C-alpha cells in the first residue's frame, strides 16, 4: 500500500469504505445512541478520537514491538488492551470536562472498548499493510465516517419522532431499514476513490 496517497485512504474511509455503512462495524452503539443529535455527535467525536489514537498506538506497538519479536499472533490481546486504556483515559477526560455528556453517553462510553469498529480498524491496518501515516489517516477517516453516519441517522431519527411509524417497525426496526438505505446511498460515492 506504499503507493497510495494517505489522503485517498482518508477520504475512502469516510465515504466509499465507511466502516459502518460498508462493513457494518460498530453497529450496536450506532443503533442505541442515535436518538439525539447532541449525544450522537458526542459519541462520534469520542469514537473518532479513540480510533485516531489507537490506530497510531497499535501501529507502533505492532511494528516496533510485536513484529521484531515475531509475536504477531499476540495482536488481538495487545490491541484490545491498548484500546481499553485509551477509552479509560477518554472517560476520565469527559467525566472531568463534560459531565452532561458523560451522563448522556452512559454505558456506551466504556463500551467503546469493545466497539468492533475500533478493533476492526486496527486489524484492517495490519491486513492492508498500511504505513504509519496511512494508518493514522485511515483511523481518523474511519472515525469521521462513523461520526457522519451516526449524525445523519440522529438527524433522521429526530425528525421521525414526529412521524407516524407502523407499530411493528418502531425503534430498531425502522432504524435498520434506514441504515440499509443509507448504505445503498453511500454506494453512490464509490466512483470517487476506492480502496480494497
Amino acid at each position, binding site marked *: 500500500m506504499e503507493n497510495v496517497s494517505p489522503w485517498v485512504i482518508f477520504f475512502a474511509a469516510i465515504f466509499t469504505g465507511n466502516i459502518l455503512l460498508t462493513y457494518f462495524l460498530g453497529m450496536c452503539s450506532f443503533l442505541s445512541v442515535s436518538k439525539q443529535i447532541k449525544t450522537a455527535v458526542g459519541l462520534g467525536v469520542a469514537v473518532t478520537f479513540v480510533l485516531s489514537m489507537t490506530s497510531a498506538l497499535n501501529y507502533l506497538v505492532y511494528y516496533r*514491538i510485536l513484529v521484531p519479536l515475531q509475536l504477531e499472533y499476540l495482536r488481538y490481546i495487545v490491541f484490545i488492551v491498548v484500546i481499553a486504556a485509551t477509552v479509560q483515559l477518554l472517560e476520565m477526560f469527559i*467525566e472531568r470536562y463534560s459531565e452532561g455528556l458523560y451522563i448522556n453517553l452512559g454505558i456506551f462510553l466504556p463500551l467503546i472498548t469493545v466497539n468492533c469498529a475500533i478493533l476492526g480498524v486496527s486489524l484492517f491496518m495490519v491486513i492492508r499493510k498500511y504505513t504509519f501515516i496511512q494508518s493514522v489517516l485511515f483511523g481518523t477517516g474511519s472515525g469521521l465516517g462513523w461520526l457522519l453516519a451516526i449524525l445523519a441517522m440522529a438527524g433522521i431519527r429526530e425528525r421521525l419522532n414526529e412521524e407516524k411509524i407502523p407499530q411493528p417497525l418502531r425503534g430498531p426496526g425502522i432504524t435498520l431499514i434506514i441504515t440499509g438505505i443509507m448504505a445503498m446511498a453511500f454506494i453512490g460515492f464509490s466512483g470517487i476513490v476506492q480502496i480494497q
Partner: protein
Amino acid sequence: MMDEIILTVAVLGGINAVLSVILVIAERFFANYGECTITINQDKTLKVTGGSSLLSALNSQKIFLPSACGGRGTCAYCKCKITEGAGTVLPTESALLSQQELQDRVRLACQVKVKSDLSIQISEALFQIKEFEAEVVLLKDLTYDIKLLRLHLLRPEEIHFTPGQYIQLQNKPYPKVREIVSRAYSIASPNDETKNIDLMIRLVPEGICTTWVHHHLQEGERVIFTGPMGNFYLREGTGEIIMVAGGSGMAPMVSLLSELARIKSQRKITYFFGAVSKKDLFYVEEMNRFEKEIPHFTFVPALSQPDPDDVWDGERGLITTPLDAYLKKMDTPKAQGYLCGSPGMLNACIKTMNNNGITSDRIFYDPFA
C-alpha cells in the same frame, strides 16, 4: 519453548505496565480537583477536597442536608441554591427541578460534584441538624408489622426538635445487604423529652432499613442518625385541626398531640386514623388518654377491611370516607390539615380536603418515600 513463554509474558506485561503507569498519572491529573472552597450563605466558608458530591462534601463537614434516598437522585430533598460554580444542570436532575427552580439556580446537592469553588445558599435551620450516636433501649412490636424503636442519645446527649419533625436513621450492613442508606422516620416522642426519642417503623417488603430494624437490630446496639429535619409542625391558628394518618404515620401525630396536651390547647382537634383491620390498630389507649387530656380532641379510627371476627362498631371504609363525611358537616374556612402516610393516602386526602374547602396552603405534610 520456555524462552517463548517468558518473552510473550514479558511483552504483554511490559505493555500493560506502561499503560497502567499512564492511567495512574492520568487519574492523578484528571480526578484530582484539589482543594475547593464552599461558601455558604456568603458567610461561612468550608475547605473540602474536590471530586465528591456536594452532599457528601457537606456531610463530611457536619452540615447535613436532608436526603432520604441516600444520594441516588430520586427523593429531591437535598435541593439547594448554588449561585456560583455548579456547571450545567445534569440530565439526572432536570426531571426533579421545576422551571422556577431552574431559574433560581436550585440544584440537587447529591448530583453536583465539587469541582471548583462553590457558592451556595441553604436554610439556616439546616445548621441545627446534627449527627447523633444513640443506643437502642427498647424495640417492641406495636402491631405485626410496626415496631416501636426507642433510642437513648449518647453523643450529643440531647436533641431539640419541633414536634412533627423527622430524623434520618442509618442502617448497618447485614447479611445480603452491604449497602448503607439513611431513611426518614418521624419522631413520636414529645419534644420535652430530649434524651430519648421514639420512632415507629413499619416493615416494608424488601426495604433495606426497615428489614434491618425488624430482623437484625437488637436492644443495646448503637446506631447513628441525623436530624431533626422537616417542615411538618403545628401552625398558629384558631380553626379546627384535622389530622389524618395511616400505619406508622401515627408517629408525628403522637408528638403533635403531646405538644397540644402540654399547652392545653383549646382548639378543636379531630384525628382520623386509617387501618386495614383490628390487628393494624395500635396506640388506642394513648389516644383515649389524649381525649381526656386535650379538651376538644376526638380520635376517629376507621377500618377498611375488618377481619370477619373483628368486633367493630366504629367507622368503616378507606379513611377518606369518614373524613369526607365529617368535612361536609363542618365549617372549614379556618381548618388546617395535618397528614402523614403513604403517597397514595396523602394524595387522596389532599383531594378530599381541597374538595371540602381546605386549600392546599392549609394542608401540611412531609413527602417521604
